[in-house]
């Protein structure tokens, strides 16, 4: 199962920074620049995309830890991208290194962990909490 997982699998996710992606829009500050939670979402998406195509049907991954530095501010209208590389596999725990850039410079670095889940089991367990 998931035998196609191997080190150095990588993927890139990109977007243009929009008003809804700013710290001001999220309320996490008053600055009209790309918000840290949005940078983390972009980083997670790159990591997810790096491994999802090689996982068995019915499996997915969920984020369990992120250690991110947000190094530079990016204004609305500029393109940003994150590149994630799988750097460690420990049974179901996958560790990625991620770099994020805008059109001018490196804007963030992160180490991120994801866990491989069985989608159905995970959903069933999470939903029992709501009852």
């Amino acid at each position, binding site marked *: 199962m998931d035998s196609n997982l191997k080190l150095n699998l990588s993927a890139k996710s990109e977007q243009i920074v929009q008003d809804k992606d700013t710290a001001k829009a999220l309320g996490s500050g008053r600055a009209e620049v790309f918000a840290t939670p949005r940078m983390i979402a972009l980083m997670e998406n790159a990591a997810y995309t790096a491994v999802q195509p090689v996982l068995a049907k019915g499996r997915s991954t969920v984020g369990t830890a992120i*250690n991110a530095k947000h190094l530079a501010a990016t204004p609305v209208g500029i393109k940003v991208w994150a590149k994630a590389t799988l750097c460690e596999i420990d049974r179901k725990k996958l560790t990625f290194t991620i770099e994020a850039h805008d059109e001018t410079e490196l804007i963030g670095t992160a180490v991120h962990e994801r866990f491989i889940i069985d989608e159905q089991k995970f959903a069933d367990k999470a939903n029992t909490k709501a009852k």
Partner: protein
Amino acid sequence: MEFDIKVGMTAKLEHTVKQEDTANALNASLPKVYSTPSLTALVELASFKIIEQHLPKGYSAVGTIVNLKHLAATPVGMKVWANATLVDIDRRRVSFKIEAFDENEKIGEAEHDRFIIEKGKFSKKTYEKADA
């Protein structure tokens, strides 16, 4: 510039998980549980809430580091909250520790740094990038 903030100050921020806060809203292949980026936003907002009212006009604070563990999954409809504590001040760098919970259990813990900025200078510098 002196800021009227002290180590030990705390704030709590609550939120009820909606579909738009789930990993599924970010990517349709992901499960319908509270996403790590949403938890990151809650943690940042709880931290900012401690200092926001104490910043002089024209000042704000931007996130520079987040080190977050997301420990448990939370379904839509459930209440989540973050308790943030200011743990260190080094000139304009302010550090926080945060714990997050849902109605059943602890769902996350984090360390977070924010940097106090002058909005005018910060915007000018940032938007020079867009004109480059």
